């Protein structure tokens, strides 16, 4: 992640680098799970 090659390739692909800690990433996944859950409810999508 620190190498210029990676930074350049990410930029070409439109990726914003993050590289956070396992704790921060876990917290974000839990937060996103709640958020996407609300979208699923609003959309009325159901498991077939």
């Amino acid at each position: 992640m620190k190498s210029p090659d990676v930074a350049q390739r990410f930029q070409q692909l439109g990726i914003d680098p993050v590289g956070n800690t396992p704790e921060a990433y876990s917290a974000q996944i839990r937060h996103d799970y709640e958020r996407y859950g609300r979208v699923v409810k609003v959309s009325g999508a159901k498991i077939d």
Partner: protein
Amino acid sequence: MSLIGSTALFLVLQASIPANDFKELVALAKAKPGSMNYGSSGLGSIHHLTTEALKAAFGLDIVHVPFKGMGQAVPALLGGQVSMLFSALPAIEAHVKAGKVKLLAISVPRRSPQAPEVPTIAELGVPGFDFAPEIGLLAPAGTPPAIVSRSRQKWRRR
């Protein structure tokens, strides 16, 4: 283990659909509810949920057509089987340049350096609209901390 990075989705419209910007698309969708459809990479995918969030925010009736991956959804857009879809830029950039599709909006609250002319959905009336595909590194539960820590060193930015 780590969120490596995040990117953005562009709302991409089939060139034959008579709307030149997002406002015209909303007007068209409201005038003829259910007349247009959108493709996604599958049920529950980021492409599906982002479009459903957009529909809910603007009160739109656009029919979902799930495909098996964007590799199938993008050709369906080009072929006119679907009217629109959300896609990352690399998958559709060449088709935008060729004039086969139009970029109407971006799913994150910051414009893209790759396409700065495309407005954010937040700007178009939904402050806080933010759906970003993510690239993350995961390991099975119970992976030894020493392994997690070693991998972590490779991915930290500083």
